[in-house]
């Protein structure tokens, strides 16, 4: 299978996974954003919240890194800059959700 086909499939798969998780997260965020620290920590302490939030972060960062790399593909002409930018993007898309997921497991 061609690299571009694999990438397109990865974007579509992450999109299908992301849609329901995005809805779950935004409804819960609207519910807790102005609550006290204790309430927010208690939300993230639930096993279901931890699991769904972790999945949401993985799906979101996978989707956004793949689609932003498509934007680089379209608008960055210099191949070297494009490759470096894409690599930095992919590293960031792994490190950022990883630190966040670890932080919710350290919360209590």
């Amino acid at each position, binding site marked *: 299978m061609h690299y571009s086909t694999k990438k397109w499939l990865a974007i579509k798969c992450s999109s299908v996974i992301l849609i329901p998780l*995005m809805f779950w997260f935004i409804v819960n*965020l609207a*519910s807790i954003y102005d609550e006290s*620290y204790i309430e927010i920590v208690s939300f993230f302490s639930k096993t279901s919240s931890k699991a769904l939030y972790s999945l949401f972060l993985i799906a*979101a960062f996978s989707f956004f890194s793949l689609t*932003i790399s498509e934007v680089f593909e*379209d608008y960055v002409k210099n191949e070297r800059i494009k490759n470096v930018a894409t690599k930095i993007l992919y590293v960031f898309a792994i490190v950022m959700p990883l630190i966040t997921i670890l*932080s919710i497991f350290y919360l209590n």
Partner: protein
Amino acid sequence: MYEKNPLSPHLQIYRWHLSMILSITHRIIGAVNSVAMILICLWTISLLFGEENYEMIKILFQSFFGKLLIISLSWSFSFHILSEIRHLIWDLGYGFDLKISKITGIITIIGSLVLTVLIYLLGKNLI
């Protein structure tokens, strides 16, 4: 010669129409949501610094600006969800007819506003 070619999607050449506006908005919202995801991560990580340090963020969220931020985020997520569903339907080979494409475009715009209200009301247990 190649360097002088206009970049896709040729904004300066074609007459603006709904699908074009939605395509551009989809990309902009995608970028906005990427930044929002980073802020969401930082918000989550900030919880590690304890209750006292969280006070500032709590005050921000309880202000008018905080409400506006959450409503804006609800809209950008809603738009992204509906626009992405529209793209997935296209990927399955449906909805390419110009009339249907226009209808699904209008549904995406109006639907995102309706979904924003629904998300906020659901979140606040008002429905």
